[in-house]
């Protein structure tokens, strides 16, 4: 049986509400919901924009495994290695040049508010710098 998940369109700041119609663990369509800003309407992007989740590889492809550049080439690794390598290099750079030598970004796109909160907390509390910003300016 299919199910309907109410969510917010990720394509612009209008914040339209829509239902993702899911069948067999796959999104099959999107239909407009009665959101405050959109009142049961959607534009093309809201209606068809979910398709990238099925990774049709038209332009680029989904990342499915952590990668570390080894001798110039990106190689697949396990999460443990990716995390300890990343944390290790960041700690090293912080020790050598100080926290203000590290820059981090938030994301104005898909990740959501909680991930942005965690990112700025990480930069401020764990790294120790206010060098955090996002692409609103760009």
């Amino acid at each position, binding site marked *: 049986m299919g199910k309907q998940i109410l969510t917010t369109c990720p394509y612009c*700041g209008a914040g339209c509400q829509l239902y993702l119609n899911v069948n067999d663990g796959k999104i099959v369509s999107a239909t407009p919901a009665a959101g405050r800003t959109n009142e049961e309407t959607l534009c093309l992007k809201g209606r068809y924009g979910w398709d990238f989740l099925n990774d049709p590889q038209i332009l680029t*492809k989904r990342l499915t495994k952590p990668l570390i550049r080894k001798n110039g080439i990106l190689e697949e690794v396990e999460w443990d290695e990716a995390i300890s390598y990343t944390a290790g290099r960041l700690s090293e750079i912080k020790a050598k040049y100080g926290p*203000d*030598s*590290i*820059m981090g970004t938030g994301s*104005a796109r898909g990740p959501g508010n909680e991930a942005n909160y965690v990112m700025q907390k990480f930069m401020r509390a764990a790294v120790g710098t206010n060098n955090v*910003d996002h692409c609103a300016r760009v």
Partner: protein
Amino acid sequence: MSMGVPEIEDAKLLFIFGYNGADAHPIVARRIVKAKQKGAKLIVTDPRITESARIADMHLQLKGGSNMALINAIGNVIIAEGLADKKFVEDHTSGYEEYKAIVEKYTPEYAEPICHVSPDLIREAARAYAKAETSMILYGMGVCQFAQAVDVVKGLASLALLTGNFGGPNMGIGPVRGQNNVQGACDMGALPNCYSGYQSVTDDAVREKFEKAWGVPLSNKVGIPLTHVPHRVLEEKDEAKKIHAYYIFGEDPAQSDPDLAEIRETLDKIDFVIMQDIFMNKTGLHADVILPSTSWGEHDGIYSCCDRGFQRIRKAIEPKGDVKTDWEIISLISTAMGYPMNYKNTQEIWDEMRSLTPSFYGATYEKIEALGSIQWPCRDESMEDKGTPYLHKGGKFAHPDGRGKFFASEWRPPCEVESSEYPYSLSTVREVGHYSVRTMTGNCRALANLEDEPGWIQMSPADCEKLNVKEGDLIRVYSRRGSLITRVMPTERVKAGATYMTYQWWIGACNELTTPYLDPISNTPESKYCAINLEKIDDQASAEQFVKDSYESIRTNMGIDTAKKGV
């Protein structure tokens, strides 16, 4: 936005400034059409004949880069003709005399040679704006992506102050921005100068509150903006002041930032580049480590839409592959660096954020669930506080004295203007159907077919004739920073000498051309305007082959098996 999106349709006058609603936000554009049907007057200020300009009562087709001069001239007319709301100015504002002194010289006759808009039209627009019962200003990237952006925004806000268009419904001033969650990233403190809820990192009381909650001492030094990174890598001589590591999360600077050649050099010079994203992208080609995350549709959370509305996103499907949510990945790195973070879900993160952010404290998950959308500020957890549809109620402003501050600034020309060598201007614009850096929509089958590489350059028919090119021809575009190939799109909608490109194409990547000049306050790059030259390509067949080859090589670089094309 100081108002809510639904209020747009009830304003008596809409003043739309450098905002192309039909392309950027179709559903906001629908409200504009509705407002018009309900009898609202529509004034559009844009160098192009946009969809909104077509249905407008007045179109001020100003020359690109002259925003500030035009806004000052409108303020000048309102004051000179006695149309200001004197009571509002007296009771609720400060700085009026200084404002008046600056706009004094910007008579419509003074502005005309700068803006290329007739003095009569400027007067007519100023009168209509000042006299309407409720006037609302909507502005977009046409304002923000100039080096004089912050001045212009404050200038627009000053027009609303001058005419008492703050503090009630269906009025005010609204930025309508590009990416879906720009508002959210700002709300959550992904900014170098403030924590969540715009609480300043230099305010001792605020910092102490966060130090106590997070259990570590925090820096009181404002951080550097993203747009300063290239300088801090390529030009900074002091090793201690250089940026040595760059954690790029859900962004693609190697496609979206101005002056791409400089960005690529920057990424290559930084000791350590972390990329965390859902798709392989151009930044990934320069990354030392790539962390794959879940996408919209695969995780829970909250977005903030452009009118301050918190709304839920929900997980609909299981992610494929060995990926984690963004907050989990960051928490793991943090823990490994000796600062443990152990969140169970997004609600737990949200509750911590609320407890530290008074203006969002009342927006609980339960309440967002029940109401669907809550516009901040929302300070009280009880169901009574349903949020705030419009700001500055009763003419109260966030400044310590509660007054709205007037601001005027002299007009400055764009940093790079046309010359004999680069005789055309280029502005970057947005397009229906494709989103930002395109890894998402470019991978949607129904949307990818809308347009295809290498994109288009909009030119006036007169310029096409002069260069002897026609629709669909490939043409070479040069600036002082780079060159690219794109297709000719003649259109009556633009003036001779001005050209427009959308920024999401990979081969025709207009950011190869744009300038890295920044607004001194917002640090926004001036990507709306630079000087270029155009060159007809005689051998169209080999240019077509070049485009085809470049497209294939980009796809190969992104790890796509070329044989799979068209799947």
